[in-house]
């Protein structure tokens, strides 16, 4: 997982709590990296899972909700960090349609070792959009949070529902967004 997700997670926790809370969280998570991350590095995604689980146990919230909230927060950060990925006049559905085929392609140019999820547009209608998420890391909640962040950014009011897709060996989630 790219280091920028970890550094943004730290900023998110610091914003919600403070530096002392973050350091205690890192110590409690007992991470092999000791929480030493740089935005451009690449780190095991299991460390993120540990951090989220520890945060959930410390705050009493559940891990899935935590991931959704963090995803929603991260999308706004992406917009300020990578404005060139956003095109004037596009809708939330248009943007989501470019993630798999355009944005991930650009990410791979910069970071050839990046392990990115598969995002496939299953349906793209003016009032309905279906995006299939497939990843061995099973971070569907995080993806859902990012989708909500996207809808927030474009000011789109929509209902997001999810259903299991794929197989046991290749799990996937279909996110259906309806206006």
């Amino acid at each position: 997982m790219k280091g920028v997700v970890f550094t943004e997670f730290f900023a998110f926790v610091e914003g919600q709590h403070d530096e002392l809370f973050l350091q205690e969280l890192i110590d409690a998570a007992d991470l092999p990296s000791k929480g030493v991350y740089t935005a451009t590095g690449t780190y095991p995604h299991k460390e993120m899972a540990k951090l989220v689980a520890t945060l959930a146990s410390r705050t009493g919230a559940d891990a899935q909700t935590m991931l959704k909230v963090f995803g929603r927060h991260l999308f706004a950060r992406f917009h300020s960090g990578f404005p060139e990925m956003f095109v004037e006049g596009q809708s939330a559905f248009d943007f989501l349609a470019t993630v798999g085929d355009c944005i991930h392609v650009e990410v791979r140019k910069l970071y050839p070792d990046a392990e990115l999820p598969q995002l496939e547009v299953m349906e793209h209608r003016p009032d309905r959009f279906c995006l299939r998420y497939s990843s061995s890391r099973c971070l569907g909640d995080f993806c859902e949070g990012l989708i909500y962040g996207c809808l927030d950014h474009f000011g789109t009011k929509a209902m997001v529902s999810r259903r299991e897709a794929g197989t046991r060996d290749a799990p996937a989630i279909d996110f259906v967004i309806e206006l």
Partner: protein
Amino acid sequence: MPDPIKTYQAIVAREKASREAAERLLEEKSRELFRKNGELARFAEQLREAHGLLSEMMSVAPNGILLCSEDLLITKANANGAKLLGCQLDAIAGRSLTEFTPELAITLDLADDGEFSVDCCDARTAAGTPIQIEVHGYCGKIRDRRRFMLLIRDITARLEKERHQQLIEKQLQEARRLEAIGTLSAGIAHEINTPIQYVSDNIEFLRDAIEQIVGSYRAQDALPEAECRNDGPLEAVATEASEAVTSDLADLADDIDAALSESRDGIRQVRDIVLLMKDFCHPGGAQEPCNLNDLVRNVVTLSKGRQKEVVAIEFEPGDDLPELCCRRSSVQQVIMNLVLNALDAVETVDLARRRISVRTSHDQQMVRVAVSDTGPGVPAELREKIFDPFFTTKPVGKGTGQGLAIAIEFIVKGHGGHLRLIEEPGFTTTFLIELPRHLADTPQTQEIRNVRTH
């Protein structure tokens, strides 16, 4: 409750470690950037080199090279491409190929993806000068879209040269035909003269015979008149007249019949020779069904004069020889050339050794004519050369060196057959003509202008 001092120390240590990690990463990325920059510079140099090489290749390429869009707009051209179409190199892009060659444009509109060739196509330069071009090309995806890549050659001068060459070849063929007619003419004159001579003699004889018969009738008519005048012993006169008529009449009638019959044969002989000469002298001709035995017989007849000077030809006609469709006068001329060559060849050896044989045969695929002689033969080192144009072993002024070359042209190109020098027991030289029983489409009948995709 954790000690806040220790926690802050841990934060400082983590931040410091993060900074150091970031510096290492920055150093690593800087080195990578430096290395990649070097690679990029090398690639750029290679690219410049490749581009320069390609540009120079394009500019010196002897063919015109055009790159056209799917709707046949010229997008790129090399110097020769622009020159060939009479345009400035920097002014050709954007012009339509249809302006220069509507014929090719129609062909390309119908072309499937892949390579293609157009052997000959009419075109016009920007100034309106008509030219003829040969095109090899590729149609299909180049980079991001379907395009046409055309290699164009101006073949106007070459076609003109070929036309001129064909004219010369035709004139040479005509010269060879006239040479053969000249060679035959002395013998033919003799062939015609002999029957004319005895026809003339017979006419003289018939005139005498008619006078004799008329005289007898007059004598008979005179008898009653003599009786009236009482001129003497009439009985003796009548007997004399009667005996003269009856004793000669039977012989005379036989002689008249023989003279008429001989004259009729002589006139037929002259007529046949004149018809054969007319046939032989007629150039070209369309394909028609004919029997090779008939053609050989004609040649043997026409060359009788030369045969009397040299040796008689032994003709062995094949049984049940099938008819084949061919250009009668062409094939007959080839056989005549071979026979005349054979006569020339055997003339140089002793009379006792002289033999010329012409044989015909056939199988399911081919009809054959073999012309053999016992002349000096063809030396091994010349066997490959004898079919070359202008090659002759005859003395200066006797042969044009076109006989066998024309024979090859007629038999191989004109009829899809073969003409070969083979070994035959008992003869020193044997030429074998093989003609297919069913003629395929030959190059002479094929359209020169064709488009093929492959």
